[in-house]
């Protein structure tokens, strides 16, 4: 994955519209195999072209859940705290065909969409595309923001 910026974002100082991460993730057949093993999803449309084509697909496609799981990692690195995620949801808008050799690039941008100070959460919206085709729709994560100390003094977000 290639990432900008490098320093962890300060969760206590987020602003709406702030871009938290812009990342690129290479997906190859190897990636699909490893995800199948890690997740237990052995649906053959994710490794067998003949089965995928018989199901009406152009060939082997990536697991939607691989895309969803990968797409949030740029954000997780940017905030340096995977434990802050309280919700994550998405629609799967277009499949990602993965060629037998080489790889395709999943490009993801994470932007702060809303901040709910009363609830102590922030919503981050993800856009994810491969070759200009949107692969996730309404992809959003809810982050728990650090609680302000009782005396009102400013505090750095968790590193």
């Amino acid at each position, binding site marked *: 994955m290639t990432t900008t910026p490098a320093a962890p974002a300060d969760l206590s100082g987020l602003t709406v519209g702030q871009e938290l991460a812009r990342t690129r993730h290479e997906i190859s057949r190897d990636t699909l195999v490893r995800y199948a093993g890690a997740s237990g999803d052995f649906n053959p449309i994710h490794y067998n072209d003949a089965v995928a084509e018989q199901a009406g697909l152009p060939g082997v496609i990536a697991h939607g859940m691989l895309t969803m799981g990968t797409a949030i990692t740029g954000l997780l690195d940017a905030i340096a705290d995977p434990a802050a995620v309280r*919700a994550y949801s998405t629609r799967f808008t277009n499949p990602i065909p993965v060629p037998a050799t080489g790889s395709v690039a999943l490009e993801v941008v994470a932007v702060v969409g809303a901040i709910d100070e009363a609830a102590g959460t922030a919503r981050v919206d993800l856009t994810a595309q491969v070759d200009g085709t949107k692969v996730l729709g309404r992809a959003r994560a809810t982050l728990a923001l650090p609680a302000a100390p009782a005396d009102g003094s400013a505090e750095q977000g968790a590193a």
Partner: protein
Amino acid sequence: MIEGFVSVGPADPTSGDVMPTTPDPAFAGRTYPAGPVHTVSAAKIVEFARATGATSALHTDAEAARGAGHADVVAPPTFLVSLAQATEAQYIEDPDSGIDFSRVVHGEESFTLHRPVVAGDRLVPTLTVEAIRAAGGHAMVTTRVDLADEAGTEVAAVRSMLVVRGD
């Protein structure tokens, strides 16, 4: 537009028991018995983090995770999909459900996490078939797997919507 669902079985009067060829709406609202208890595995967290490119040391280094206040390594946000899908199988793979898995396309997924999930957590899954709807000749099946600890405290919920393509 989402319209009311009508199930029509095969029109063969010579067949015996009729297996549904489209998702049987009778399953909507059904909740399955809870369990069995599943222990979250540190090794699977490490493997899943690697497979999705989650690079935080909190997923792989128990000492780092404890230093950050957790009991053990922290699961990435979509990690529970494995347990959720294994639980959903009670319904999805039931021959009586009428779901032809070769026609299934994943439509949506959502995770609600009341707290971080860590290795060693013992989670009790409960499956509910939330809705079965028809739209544009396809069926949309929504399930929810609730995950609680052994004391019954909610830990997480995983919702999944599958599109079962019509002809």
